[in-house]
């Protein structure tokens, strides 16, 4: 195998495996209590692929585990036994999935995949044997070793599935695997390591002659285990043994079955979605739905995508530097500006394309939660159903990495603390089964992720007591609104659950939510109704990299406000402005009343324009709230490549980052949500 580029194959392998395991978990979790034929086939197919690929990459322990599970599901598929203990079955399969996942992590970290699944394989075997003993007539399918020591000569023609790629490597693996069972192996094409043989094998098939002491059916069974096998034509040249028609027939059926499955989504490693880490969950989402083999996608290293994005940012800045160059001031350059506009347009399109390449649907992250819900229900003896809405919503890849943990912690919290035990629920007149809804939707330049449960809701008093005990109160107790009190649960070290469970109660977790969201510039809000559940709303930006911004001027400095939050701007008339006794300024505009926030006051800056009529008001939207922000003047619309504030600075309320303008000046990016919370 050293002849092949093992590194890149390993990368593909890990990617492919992760997808398969994820798909496996979903299938199992979906149908935990009873498997239908489709699902059994699906699991069988997944285990088959896992076995094949891991054997090819020589991860024997993974191959061994997947093999026994495959055997188990082969039996289920063929015999459809009654009174199956689906619960234990699911447990076994998930345990297998966990083992594979664990090994994958090791492989990914460059460690040796040294896990030992001896006990697991043993228990799966025992489970299968028990099934077989229950099913009456079945004779153990143990291989029949030939009694005599005679050698048979076989001839085989192998066709691989269309589009399985790397036919030569697959052929090599096949030969390699045959070594244990056969000798005098000869094959055409003779040099499988050569790239050119790929095409020959694809066209004509792969021919192997060999001698073996094993009987026909065993050799056939072995060869049928080849990954991506489409067709096998195995013949015994010296008919030393008479054919058993029944076996032969069965074998044909088996061949047909294998041949029937090419519509299985082409192996992810080959038909990988755009970005290497963009799990194309569309197929995982609907396991029943088969896809055509021709997916016009390639896999790209994320590093390259990141580099592309950085270059894109530099291009945007340098375009601005050229077209807004101060040396052009006052010049009459009609044609230049016309061409510059065209350039701008192309750059805009380019930028959109680059950004869209980085967009990943949330489905992968969302579907993973099924497993968490399932495990928690088993452990806590609760009954919870997870409903997923809007999983096709896409966000930037960088962001997705940071929101998986927050979502998981919130869901854990909802199930552990929110949803009551089935009996309690019944007494309360609720359905025994609790519901957690996980939903994603767009809202301007943000994505909202909502986790809603129908449990007991947050206990306001309990949280308040805890906050008081821990000295977290910053103002008189009575001044706290419900929402502010609920927000305490995101503080580090806060947990009202006096009992520590495997999932929560240690006070770690919920602060991870806020920490992770802060990194991507998002936030979280909680609302709760006692007795009927709580709603967690995570607001995250669509993308981190480049925003459409309005640059404004105030007290000698420049600020950028995301265009998506701006409704309009206008010169205020003093007769529309009034103040309440607390000094809050307000303005009536088109029949509505808005609060005025003076940006210089908010930031505590002196030398700005203080006369409302000399400044300008910008009406800004955050969710369903509006304010009018007073600034000195507007400068203009500009693309802003967002950079974070220098690490040394503490978080500044009202600012989310900074950006370089076309002329090399720095503009500070306003965090609109920050302006709203006082």
């Amino acid at each position, binding site marked *: 195998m050293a002849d092949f580029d093992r590194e890149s194959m390993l990368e593909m392998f890990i990617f492919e495996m992760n997808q398969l395991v994820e798909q496996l978990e979903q299938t199992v979790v979906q149908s935990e209590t009873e498997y239908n034929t489709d699902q059994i086939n699906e699991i069988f197919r997944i285990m088959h692929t896992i076995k094949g690929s891991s054997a090819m990459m020589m991860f024997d322990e993974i191959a061994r585990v997947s093999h026994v599970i495959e055997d188990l599901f082969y039996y289920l598929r063929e015999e459809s036994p009654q009174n199956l203990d689906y619960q234990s079955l699911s447990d076994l399969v998930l345990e297998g999935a966990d083992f594979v996942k664990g090994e994958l992590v090791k492989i990914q970290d460059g460690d040796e995949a040294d896990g030992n699944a001896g006990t697991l394989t043993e228990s799966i075997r025992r489970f299968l044997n028990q099934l077989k003993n229950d099913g009456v007539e079945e004779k153990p399918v143990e291989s029949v070793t030939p009694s005599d020591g005679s050698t048979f000569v076989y001839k085989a023609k192998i066709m691989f599935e269309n589009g399985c790629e790397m036919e030569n490597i697959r052929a090599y693996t096949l030969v390699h695997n045959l070594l244990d069972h056969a000798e005098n192996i000869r094959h055409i094409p003779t040099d499988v390591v050569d790239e050119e043989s790929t095409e020959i094998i694809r066209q004509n098939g792969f021919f192997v002659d060999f001698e073996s002491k094993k009987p026909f059916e065993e050799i056939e069974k072995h060869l049928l285990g080849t990954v991506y096998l489409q067709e096998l034509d195995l013949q015994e040249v010296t008919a030393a043994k008479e054919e058993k028609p029944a076996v032969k027939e069965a074998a044909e059926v088996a061949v047909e079955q294998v041949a029937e499955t090419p519509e299985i989504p082409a192996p992810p490693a080959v038909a990988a979605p755009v970005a290497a880490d963009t799990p194309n969950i569309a197929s995982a989402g609907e396991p029943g739905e088969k896809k055509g083999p021709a997916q016009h996608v390639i896999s790209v290293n994320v590093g390259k995508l990141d580099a592309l994005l950085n270059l894109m940012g*530099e291009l945007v*800045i340098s375009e601005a530097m050229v077209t807004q160059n101060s040396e052009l001031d006052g010049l009459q350059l009609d044609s230049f500006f016309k061409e510059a506009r065209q350039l701008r347009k192309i750059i805009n399109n380019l930028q959109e394309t680059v950004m869209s390449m980085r967009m990943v649907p949330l489905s992968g992250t969302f579907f993973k939660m099924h497993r968490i819900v399932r495990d928690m229900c088993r452990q806590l003896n609760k009954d919870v159903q997870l409903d997923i809405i809007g999983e096709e919503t896409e966000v930037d890849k960088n962001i997705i990495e940071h929101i998986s943990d927050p979502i998981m912690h919130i869901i854990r919290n909802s199930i552990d603390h929110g949803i009551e035990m089935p009996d309690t629920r019944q007494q309360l007149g609720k359905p025994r089964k609790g519901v957690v809804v996980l939903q994603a939707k767009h809202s301007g330049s943000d994505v909202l992720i909502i986790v809603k449960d129908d449990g007991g809701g947050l206990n306001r008093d309990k949280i308040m007591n805890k906050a008081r005990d821990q000295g977290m109160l910053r103002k008189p107790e009575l001044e706290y609104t419900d929402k502010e009190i609920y927000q305490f649960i995101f503080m580090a070290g806060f947990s009202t659950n006096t009992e520590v469970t495997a999932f929560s109660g240690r006070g770690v977790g919920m602060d991870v939510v806020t920490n992770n969201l802060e990194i991507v510039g998002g936030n979280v809000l909680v609302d709760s109704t006692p007795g009927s559940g709580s709603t967690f709303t995570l607001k995250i930006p669509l993308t981190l990299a480049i925003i459409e911004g309005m640059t404004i001027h105030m007290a*000698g*400095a*420049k600020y950028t406000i995301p265009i998506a939050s701006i409704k309009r701007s206008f010169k205020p008339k003093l007769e529309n402005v009034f103040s309440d006794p607390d000094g809050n300024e307000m303005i009536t505009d088109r029949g509505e009343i808005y609060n005025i926030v003076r940006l210089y006051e908010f*930031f*505590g*800056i002196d030398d700005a324009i203080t006369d409302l009529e000399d400044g300008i008001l910008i009406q800004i939207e955050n969710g369903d709230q509006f304010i009018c922000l007073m600034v000195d003047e507007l400068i203009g619309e500009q693309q802003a490549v967002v*950079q974070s*504030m*220098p*690490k*040394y*600075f*503490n978080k*500044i*309320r*009202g*600012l989310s980052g*900074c950006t*370089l303008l076309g002329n*090399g*000046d*720095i*503009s*500070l990016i306003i965090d609109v949500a920050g302006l709203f919370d006082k």
Partner: protein
Amino acid sequence: MTTDMMQLEEDTLKLDAIKDMFFIFEIDSEDYGVEVANVKEIISMPKITKVPQLPAFIEGIINLRGDLIGVLDVRKRFGKIPKEYDEETCIVVIVYNQYTLGLIVDNVKAALTIPAENVAPPPSAKINSYNQFIRNIGKVGDGVKLLLDLERFLEQ
């Protein structure tokens, strides 16, 4: 193996060469030093963008060839009376821990090697209120150089 060893030796030599070197700058006619290993470059005063709601000694951010870095006014950090920037004022760009920061100083003098035997901690009687930022005092000829403790200097 051998190349590794040689590389290691070379690195050690390089480290040795700059180990006792300090970059000397002036504040209020007093000489201060930072270890050369922490100094990235010296730049003349660029345009500084003020950032609201930060401690007073943090002046703002500057554009250093496309990188946006924070700048600190050393005078203000020392609690001295601020002074107008002039043509001698410049920024010492330092890299410390994960931070890249600019230090605004009155002027820069030179890089000096101060052998370890000429370096001593400040007098233990803490009556001098500026001692908190000084780790050591180096003797050079008749004068002294106050050597900065960046860890404490950068604490907010």
